[in-house]
């Protein structure tokens, strides 16, 4: 800095830069500032040496500490697995009813099953397990194949009408369009609807009951209460898988829809299925 530029008031030399007669004083930086500045430079260098930083042609420097965020994730997962491990072992080693009897295990199975449910089951049964037309609501107390913990487990393991599993639950409802004429279908539908609510055409009920006894009672039972061995639904209750009312019943009688559920046992493994069964069992409608 040339001595020519000395600010008259402060006695400090200026940089020589001038704007509208205002000159910039050339005070040195405060020492704490300078030292902080050097410290940050040192820190920056040290940091890039200690951790992966400098780009190379195909990768980057590895850093003295050999740190890697991937390795950290792997460690975290291993740590989480280690914590989970003992519980998973316990769930694996116990029957589903034992798990239900143990409050802690049950809570763990419910949350693990809930997570598995969100990945594998919500596509059909809905995120709240509430189902939709053709896909059963798992919250209610109406079970086609049984609502006990072990029967639920069996259903999840082997699926329903699932070709790929030898132990799958099988049943077929014939299409009555070939057996019954329009009027008969109308009559039997009215009869079935009348079992759980008021019927539109009273005169259809009696002939409908006769048709029911001849054609339907074999599977659905003489009292129409259904048969879980066959997955035949209870026709007297308030829950209708494929829609309530005469029209929906008639459509089902003519050409029945029959759902398929995949077998999950092979895919998810014994433990996950057990957890799923505990979760479904805990939704509130189970037996």
């Amino acid at each position, binding site marked *: 800095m040339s001595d020519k530029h000395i600010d008259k008031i402060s006695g400090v030399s200026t940089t020589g830069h001038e704007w509208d007669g205002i000159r910039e004083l050339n005070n*040195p930086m405060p*020492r*704490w500032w300078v030292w902080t500045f050097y410290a940050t430079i040192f820190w920056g260098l040290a940091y890039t040496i200690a951790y992966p930083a400098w780009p190379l042609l195909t990768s980057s420097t590895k850093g003295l500490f050999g740190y890697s965020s991937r390795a950290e994730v792997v460690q975290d997962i291993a740590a989480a697995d280690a914590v989970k491990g003992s519980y998973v072992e316990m769930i694996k080693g116990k029957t589903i009813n034992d798990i239900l009897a143990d409050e802690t295990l049950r809570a763990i199975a419910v949350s693990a099953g809930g997570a598995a449910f969100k990945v594998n089951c919500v596509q059909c049964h809905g995120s709240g397990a509430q189902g939709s037309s053709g896909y059963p609501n798992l*919250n209610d107390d109406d079970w086609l194949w049984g609502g006990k913990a072990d029967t639920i487990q069996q259903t999840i393991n082997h699926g329903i009408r699932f070709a790929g599993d030898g132990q799958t639950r099988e049943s077929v409802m014939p299409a009555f369009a070939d057996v019954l004429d329009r009027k008969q279908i109308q009559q039997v539908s009215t009869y079935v609807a009348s079992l759980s609510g008021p019927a539109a055409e009273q005169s259809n009920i009696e002939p409908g009951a006769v048709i029911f006894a001849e054609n339907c009672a074999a599977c659905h039972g003489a009292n129409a209460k259904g048969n879980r061995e066959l997955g035949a639904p209870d026709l007297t209750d*308030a829950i209708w898988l494929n829609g309530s009312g005469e029209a929906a019943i008639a459509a089902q009688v003519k050409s029945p829809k029959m759902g398929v559920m995949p077998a999950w046992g092979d895919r998810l493994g014994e433990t996950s299925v057990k957890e799923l069964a505990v979760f479904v069992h805990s939704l*509130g409608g189970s037996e």
Partner: protein
Amino acid sequence: MQDQSEIIRLEADAVNSARTRQPLYAPRRKIFPKRASGDFRRFKWIVMAITLGIYYLTPWLRWDRGPFAPDQAVLIDLVNRRFYFFFIEIWPQEFFFVAGLLVMAGIGLFLVTSTVGRAWCGYTCPQTVWVDLFLVVERAIEGDRNARIKLDAAPWSFRKIATRVIKHTIWLCIAVATGGAWIFYFADAPKLVADFVAGAAVASAYVTVAILTATTYTFGGLMREQVCTYMCPWPRIQAAMLDETSLTVTYNDWRGEPRSRHAKRMALAGESVGDCVDCNACVAVCPMGIDIRDGQQLECITCALCIDACDGVMDKLGKERGLISYTTLNDYNANMALATAGSTHPVNPALVRNPDGRLSNKVANISLRKLFRPRTLIYLGVWSAIGLFMVYALLTRNRLELNVLHDRNPQFVVLSDGSIRNGYTLKLLNMVPRQRSVRLSLKGAFPAASMSVLGSGKPEGGAFDIELEPDRLKTIKVFVRQAAGQAAAPFQEFKFVIEDNAGGERADYTATFNAPETAQ
């Protein structure tokens, strides 16, 4: 000059005063505060003993809370998210108590500052207290001001190295103890100290101790007054809170000036002399390196040591104490007006004295009454109101709580008999460290409602007994069911109620029951 023979004049330079202070880029000039003695110093020793005592010893106090809660009187249990303070236990959702305390601390600081100035800085600020402690060590090892100046200037010798090593080692020990004490607030102290020494404590404990050791050592030992002057925001904020009725450490130049080192001679010569004999005692003791005779300065932390120093001098001179004193600006101005005949003349100390040499009774002095003014009373009022509200809230708070989450997906479930079911997740908070059994029931329930608890058997008389673990939250799943065709509206309100079976506390929660529109 005989009467002043015992007054030792010190060559003390106020290194941080506006006249002499270095530019910021120049190396710092060290301050070697001289030991002061007097009433304020004694008071400060007591404050120091109390504050350090509280800090170091609190974690070791025990408080029996039974087998299900820690027995440490003050404990911030971050892992379990509990705060224990003697008989008070705070859960995370009661954090407003802590927030309230912080608000009170803030307003308390306003109150203190507007009445007695920077008392926080001068007496209780950890920076001040620890610097004081570090200075005690420094003085014990290196001697008082002159010895330290001499040692500092001396070339490196074995003795110098030895004293320095001893001093810094003791400082470091204090720093480690300070950092160490901190972590004991967060875990069981006796266990942690054993773990810590054995190397078995969690990493964060060591990191915390290391950081606090470093800050204590650097701030208390090396940086000292620079922390107050350059780093701390409080001096700036406080400046905005002082007013003309706040007490500040003031040099009363209306009786001190004109200062003179040859008072007697000048008095004989008929010249006007003030009380200040320019002995620099006030400068030598100042830990901030300023000269209070320059007037109020940002650097002054009002530690009052210069008052002690000057009072000692005044005692020896046989004059009234208080040449440097706690004074309000109002009083100061009044006295100044007195001494300058309404600022028409230079200060004439004779004007504030009676012919017999004693201070005139027209001189304004501090009085307690002046501390009570609208501003301080408002601060006091707000402060006490918050305090009282917190005490009230603390005494009446419920240690049993209930929170309810209504299932939304699905909102309701139709069961096979046509009845409607809603699901709820209940969170029962047992906030006392003992087991409790509560009875869960429905109140104000809509027609034909019944309840079941997942995993429990049949209800007794429509209610369930639920065991709550000590000091824990329990989550249960509850289903409420209404028979077919009974729903009066798509949304029906009712209450979940829990009652302590041993009598006493109860809690309730208003929930709704959803039904399909068509179910009515």
